[in-house]
């Protein structure tokens, strides 16, 4: 298989209600990515599109709908979709296209427009639950995540006021992100005193619903060397689905992620993740999820991530900066686009072009993950400079 590089990236600002249609959002991100590396649409061999449920944008077969805005006119195009995990599967999907030798360049586009669905896009999730044993109870995503958070906290004896530090950190990091929807200086007290959604989840523990798009350009090595002086390599990809019967899982530990991470690490030749990885973008739609995922990515021992957080280990200037972008909690959460935003952050950081967000120490290896469906899909990528 051929080595695959990331040579360009772009994204829109994340908004609660963007005026742009879904395909206009995709166009803005794709155009910016092409411009970032001075490539033209005619330089692109194929396109992959990541987008979560059709029910968000309210357009059935959203991949086809998005294709022209994603630069796919008369090109081989394929859509992938694994719920919230979509945005980090996106580069993996593009990796296949280029690594296989079939194509030299690939546009990887991720888009979500959640504001179309009303009264609230959360309503679209009712049909992901089992239609006969669960839907009659009107489950919500917030309550199943609250259920998971409770199990995670109780198992490890974590305190809510410590977990709230994730929101404080990420929203602060997002102040330096030009595309951020909900950046800000918040305190632990602000998080604890915000509206209760489902115990133990408060309003500020959750990322917002958003509209937005992101795009990344992948290229085979010989093209990458021509396009850029500093290609960033997509050296590891992994993904995994745990059982769809979510009630049978323990929930305190993300097994789905460990399996996916081990696959990506093996491919990238990483033996000791906590030593070899310099920077991480763990998926953080909820505060606890960043910690849950730091443990699942084998970057902290089980039950120890909160102490490391409290000690500042995951700050932008800490030993292992986590979500230096500002994450979903700060930048926003247009589902698939948010996952790809995290991979783009690694790309910018490893390239040394993250501006005010740049972490110190010239990082050379980063990992990002996303998660979704019924809390059971894990997607992971490893990037190197």
């Amino acid at each position, binding site marked *: 298989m051929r080595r695959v590089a990331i040579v360009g990236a772009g994204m*829109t*600002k994340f*908004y*609660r*209600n*963007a*005026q*742009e249609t879904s395909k206009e*959002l995709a166009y*803005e991100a794709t155009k910016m990515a092409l411009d970032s590396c001075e490539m033209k649409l005619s330089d692109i061999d194929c396109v992959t599109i990541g987008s979560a449920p059709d*029910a968000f944008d*309210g357009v*059935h077969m959203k991949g086809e709908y998005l294709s022209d805005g994603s630069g796919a006119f008369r090109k081989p195009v394929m859509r992938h979709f694994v719920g919230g995990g979509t945005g980090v599967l996106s580069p993996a999907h593009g990796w296949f296209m280029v690594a296989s030798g079939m194509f030299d360049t690939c546009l990887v586009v991720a888009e979500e427009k959640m*504001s179309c669905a009303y*009264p*609230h*896009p*959360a*309503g679209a*999730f*009712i049909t992901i639950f089992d*239609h*006969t*044993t*669960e839907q*009659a*109870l*009107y*489950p*919500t995503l*917030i*309550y*199943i995540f*609250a*259920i*998971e958070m*409770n*199990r995670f906290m*109780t198992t490890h004896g974590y305190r809510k006021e410590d977990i709230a530090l994730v929101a404080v950190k990420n929203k602060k990091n997002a102040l330096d992100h*030009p*595309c951020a929807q909900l950046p800000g200086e918040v305190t632990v007290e602000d998080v604890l005193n915000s*509206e*209760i*959604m*489902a*115990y*133990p*989840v408060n309003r500020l523990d959750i990322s917002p619903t958003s*509209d937005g798009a992101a795009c990344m350009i992948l290229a085979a090595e010989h093209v990458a060397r021509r396009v850029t002086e500093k290609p960033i390599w997509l050296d590891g990809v992994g993904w995994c689905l745990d*059982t769809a*019967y979510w*009630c*049978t899982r*323990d*929930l305190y530990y993300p097994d789905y992620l460990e399996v996916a991470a081990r696959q990506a690490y093996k491919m990238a030749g990483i033996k000791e993740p906590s030593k070899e990885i310099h920077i991480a973008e763990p998926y953080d739609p909820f505060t606890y999820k960043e910690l849950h995922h730091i443990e699942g990515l084998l970057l902290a021992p089980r039950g120890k991530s909160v102490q490391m957080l409290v000690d500042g280990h995951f700050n932008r200037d800490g030993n292992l900066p986590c979500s230096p972008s500002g994450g979903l909690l700060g930048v926003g959460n247009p589902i698939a686009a948010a996952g790809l935003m995290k991979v783009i952050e690694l790309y910018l950081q490893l390239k040394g072009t993250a501006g005010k967000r740049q972490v110190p120490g010239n990082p050379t290896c980063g990992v990002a993950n996303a998660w979704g469906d019924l809390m059971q899909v894990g997607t992971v990528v490893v990037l190197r400079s």
Partner: protein
Amino acid sequence: MALIERFQKTTDIGYWEGQIPMNYIYTVGRAGEKFFREIMNGKIFGAKCDVCNIIYVPPRTYCEKCFARLEDSYVEVGTKGTVHTFTQCYETFDGMKKEAPSLVAVIRIDGTDGGLVHWLGEVDFKKVYIGMPVEAVFKAKKDREGSILDIKYFKPTK
């Protein structure tokens, strides 16, 4: 950044209201047929995989781990379990404020590997804990209709 926030009034700029008009009739499936017929009898059934030594609740026609067929392996599992984890939820499924919060738990049915998500009743939120023993409370027999709601809720075992 060229993007701007969406206009929220028709008088500001045009938008189009629409829906995906479709309704569904879901079959409960072959394992579901067993599960819901027995629920009407006030019983909870699972399916046992002897190879993997797993009891699935609700029952399934196959083992997802080894792919054995389980249709001849349905077993009654009793109506008692423990609270595996829980929440008290203040929002409706479509993101609106609930009139009264609901108390929800994942119940691990005793002696099985399976769990049901369901409501908790006859207990105050502050008294609930992970590991709490609970049992299913069924509707009156004449009111049962082969639904997961034939179980009204789970209550603490005395």
